[in-house]
């Protein structure tokens, strides 16, 4: 008998339990500020006595009306929490939020139900700490153990490590999940004090990340570990956020840093504060992309910040091109790195340009467009057949 045969109905009544719907909604809502929606894993899946597999990257079973991908059942295990994070609706100092909690069996059955009907690609399980982070983490692990063991679930699992939990729990979580994460939320101990005074930045967060990094030598995670920062939660500058992100990549070995603009939520101690514009969050993603995917160094990227340490209101890559390029770039002769510096050219289109020019010269802007170059942004920086657009202010006429 495989896992599917053991799966009963989710409720005993003819219609789905209204209470269960309310619980799914409340716990789902509690996790929606966690941004990661990745489902890509290097784990190989075989055998016949299983449910599911890990799949291709870029899968999105649905998109919400805000345009974001819904590929995982992203939920809290419980929205009860003793931490007093000033920005969080589940925090001990927030009001008016009814507390819910799954049981391991209930959560496992919901995941399997949604997965078999192809609503989701896997599970993203986060949580408030409940009364005690160790006990809550145990129950989260128990839910994933049920999925993996009793039900033979081989789909994607992202498990959140709760701040301050013991190393044994971290190790077990890493054995079960494709990806684990712990949110650093902010850039330093002092800014953590501004937004979440009950958490110790060094002990509860960074030390747990060090455990993950060390355990990865023994238990490699198929999808690595990640973290997330709130942009503008405290008084930190963009440069501080970038430096912390670089530290996370270099020292902690995280696969991705995610960013979430601070949003003022009713009922929280920060409800009167102004939300941070989403554009600021977007600039951090653009910068992160330039560092992580395009390979620009921390030093090269310092030039995109203004004197106060904030990012410009425009695409940071435009600023970077102004810093790094001495003149227009000829796509027929430029190096891969030079091509990457041009706004509108990414690693894929730069790779295509290099491939095609081994066969023949690129003759027109239309050809560049066909190779995937965003011509509107790239054209002012390019030189093609001796001709270039003459509107670039810093190169003169």
């Amino acid at each position, binding site marked *: 008998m*495989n896992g*599917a045969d053991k799966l009963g109905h989710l409720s005993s009544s003819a219609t789905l339990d209204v209470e269960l719907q309310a619980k799914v909604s409340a716990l789902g809502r509690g996790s*929606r500020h966690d941004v990661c929606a990745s489902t890509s894993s290097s784990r190989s899946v075989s055998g016949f*006595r299983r449910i599911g597999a890990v799949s291709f990257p870029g899968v999105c079973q649905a998109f*919400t009306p805000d345009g974001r991908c819904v590929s995982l059942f992203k939920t809290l295990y419980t929205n009860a929490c003793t931490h007093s994070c000033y920005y969080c609706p589940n925090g001990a100092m927030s009001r008016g939020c009814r507390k819910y909690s799954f049981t391991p069996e209930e959560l496992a059955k*919901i995941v399997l139900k949604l997965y*078999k009907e192809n609503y989701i690609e896997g599970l993203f399980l986060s949580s408030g700490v409940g009364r005690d982070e160790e006990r809550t983490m145990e129950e989260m692990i128990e839910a994933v153990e049920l999925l993996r063991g009793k039900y033979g679930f081989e789909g994607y699992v992202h498990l959140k490590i709760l701040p301050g939990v013991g190393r044994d729990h971290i190790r077990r979580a890493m054995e079960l999940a494709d990806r684990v994460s712990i949110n650093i939320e902010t850039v330093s101990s002092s800014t953590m004090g501004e937004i979440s005074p009950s958490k110790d930045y060094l002990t509860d967060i960074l030390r747990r990340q060090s455990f993950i990094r060390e355990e990865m030598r023994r238990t490699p995670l198929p999808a690595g570990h990640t973290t997330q920062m709130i942009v503008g939660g405290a008084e930190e500058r963009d440069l501080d956020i970038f430096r912390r992100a670089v530290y996370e990549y270099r020292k902690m070995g995280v696969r991705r840093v995610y960013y979430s603009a601070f949003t003022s939520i009713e009922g929280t101690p920060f409800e009167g504060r102004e*939300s941070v514009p*989403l554009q600021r969050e977007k600039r951090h993603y653009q910068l992160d992309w330039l560092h992580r995917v395009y390979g620009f160094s921390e030093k090269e990227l310092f030039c995109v910040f203004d004197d106060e340490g904030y990012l410009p209101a425009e695409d940071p890559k435009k600023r970077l091109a102004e810093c790094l390029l001495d003149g227009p770039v000829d796509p027929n002769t430029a190096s891969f790195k030079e091509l990457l510096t041009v706004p509108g050219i990414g690693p894929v289109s730069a790779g295509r340009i290099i491939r095609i020019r081994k066969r023949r010269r690129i003759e027109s802007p239309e050809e560049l467009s066909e190779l995937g170059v965003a011509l509107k942004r790239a054209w002012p920086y390019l030189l093609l057949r001796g001709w270039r657009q003459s509107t670039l202010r810093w190169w003169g006429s």
Partner: protein
Amino acid sequence: MRESSINYLKRHRDLRQADILLAQGISEDDLLLPENEKVRRIRRMIREVGTEYHYLKSFIRFEEPRRGILVGYASPKHRIKQMLADHFAHRFPGNLIVVGDERSFCLSLLSERGRLRVEVKGSIKVLRRELGCGGREDEGSVLWESYYFSQYEPRRRNLGMFKRRMPERYRREVKLKLKSTPGNVTLDDFLKNKEEECSGDKDISYGLL
């Protein structure tokens, strides 16, 4: 050319024998900057099939009317029903996967005893009725709607992006419909109303209660 590209090409609804012959003589690099309209056509056809396959792998929804049988509605433009069924047969070994529409459906089963792949002419609606689809299994759909709307962040509303990423022609596969709402409000109604109404969290429950 890559085998997967040839495979996509062969499944395009407008495929001509000449397309295959031409494709066999060109490389992936030839598709980067097509030399002529015939090669451009090959590239377009491969992309169209690949895009549709990618979308439907994500957007198809299954019902399980009987233990071990998963039935999903999909009405692709191109001949990819069997590919879709095979994809899910690999994902759910031991389960019979049925994928199709009113014209035909494909079956796929991967088990320790071997592999089954069959294409049947006929409507999947008849099969669904015979298997008793549309009953309790809507549990998953109701649950998913509760979850789906919990993930919506009104502050980030971006309907243009939503419509681009979730083309209307796939909405039937996705089963995005608020059946439990008084007056049978549909997703389109919801989106229209949200333009004026969704300014805070409280509004999210509007479509669900």
